[in-house]
């Protein structure tokens, strides 16, 4: 019997999708046992089973995803290995070195170093995440005011070293990729809501 479960209501009551399965009492006397066997033998249930698998074989409705060649799409809010993004126009790093991510990280696994460079601009010299401790909670991405640290979609993390994903050079979008327009904007945790461009007032640049 096909039965759709109502996921919003898991309480057992009259209107929910739960129902009691009829289970007959076990036969006690020999004659009753015999009758049960005869009933089961001739009810053809075994052939129903044979028919069902044969039907599936003929329909050939294969559900296998041949993984390395085919991949299932993952949700936009999936929290895989981090990325540091760049500004689209100038190519500068988005990260302003505010340190909020370092502060909020509950596993205390972000480590960064900053300095004031020649143009009196704060420059992030070191930025690394210890993936051995990161729990991929997404707080760093959520707290970042610049949308600089985000979670990427890269879930295949085979490498010789864990550190290969999470020192600054690995996370930062390379400039040539940025120029080729291959930097993906992050729609997940803490990202700009769609249509936010319209609600932003332009700041005049020259007086």
């Amino acid at each position, binding site marked *: 019997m096909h039965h759709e479960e109502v996921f919003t209501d898991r309480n057992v009551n009259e209107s929910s999708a739960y129902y009691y399965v009829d289970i007959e009492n076990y036969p006690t006397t020999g004659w009753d046992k015999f009758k049960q066997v005869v009933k089961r033998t001739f009810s053809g249930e075994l052939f129903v089973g044979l028919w069902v698998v044969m039907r599936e074989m003929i329909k050939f409705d*294969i559900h*296998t995803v041949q993984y390395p060649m085919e991949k299932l799409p993952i949700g936009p809010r999936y929290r895989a290995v981090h990325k540091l993004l760049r500004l689209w126009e100038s190519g500068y790093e988005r990260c302003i070195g505010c340190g909020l991510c370092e502060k909020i990280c509950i596993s205390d696994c972000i480590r960064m170093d900053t300095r004031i460079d020649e143009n009196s601009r704060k420059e992030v010299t070191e930025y690394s995440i210890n993936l051995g401790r990161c729990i991929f909670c997404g707080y760093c991405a959520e707290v970042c005011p610049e949308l600089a640290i985000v979670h990427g979609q890269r879930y295949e993390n085979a490498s010789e070293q864990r550190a290969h994903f999470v020192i600054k050079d690995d996370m930062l979008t390379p400039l040539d990729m940025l120029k080729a327009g291959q930097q993906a904007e992050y729609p997940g945790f803490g990202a700009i809501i769609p249509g936010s461009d319209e609600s932003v007032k332009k700041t005049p640049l020259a007086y």
Partner: protein
Amino acid sequence: MDVAFIIETIAKIVVILLIFSALAGLGTYFERKVLAFMQRRLGPMHVGPYGLLQVAADGIKLFTKEDIVPQNVVKPIFKIAPVITAATAFMASAAIPFWPQFTAFGYTVHPIVADINVGILYVLGIMAIGLYGPLLGGMASANKWSLISAARSAAIFISYEVITGLALLAPLMMVGSLSLIDINNYQAGGITHWIVWSQPVAFVLFWIAAFAETGRTPFHLVANDHEIIDGFGTEYSGMRWGMFFIGEYANMFFISFVISIVFLGGFGDGTIAGAVQLLLKVSFFFFFFLWTRAAWPDIRPDQLMWLCWKVLMPIAVLNVVATGIVMMF
């Protein structure tokens, strides 16, 4: 006994060994594919086109794997047990006619190693000896799962062997010979002469017993993965385990041949059409082994014994008695 006969017999033995070892490998391929399709999967796909070379990969793996003999096993018995299973499976094939006799290059070939007059008795007897593989292997393994498996194989063996014998008795009474060739020729008159029409009960009983004989689902109790790991095979590795495997699959093919020949007319009148029909029948029975594995649950050992002793055996006895009464009048 002349030299030509000896050479011919050896050639036949080699051919049968090669063909059925290869078929046992291919059987595993088909099993995986059929089970996969029935469960909406693809099965092996990566080794070779459509995974066809998976068989070769498995073979290489089994042959090159380290042969581990655990510390506390009874070593000579542990080592000989897989050989018993594989060897008896192939020895049983000696009396099975795989193909009608044909003439090639002016030489008449009988595709049967030995047409002995007790053919079917020999086949079943040798197949029954195959039981010692799981039994001894399980008992020698120093492993509780293996021991349970050995106990089960002995208990099941006594149960189904009675059914096999009694079920076959009725058709044999009609044919009056134990030679598989005679049984085949008895049904040579075409589909209406098949023994399955006159002995449907014996056919079903023998078929059920064949599942127990080969240890396939629903009677896959001797090596039931979800209860007793791999049963008698738990401690085995590499080619020793592979021999159990080859034995099991070769047994499936041979018992399929036996059912087809005894009940479904075999190769009929011996023409090519009849021979192809025999292969089709065998393929069907082999496929059915896979089919039930996808569809049916396993039963408990006590249920199997209950079924064999309290249900099937009385039916088989009644069948023999009824056949006898009908033949007397």
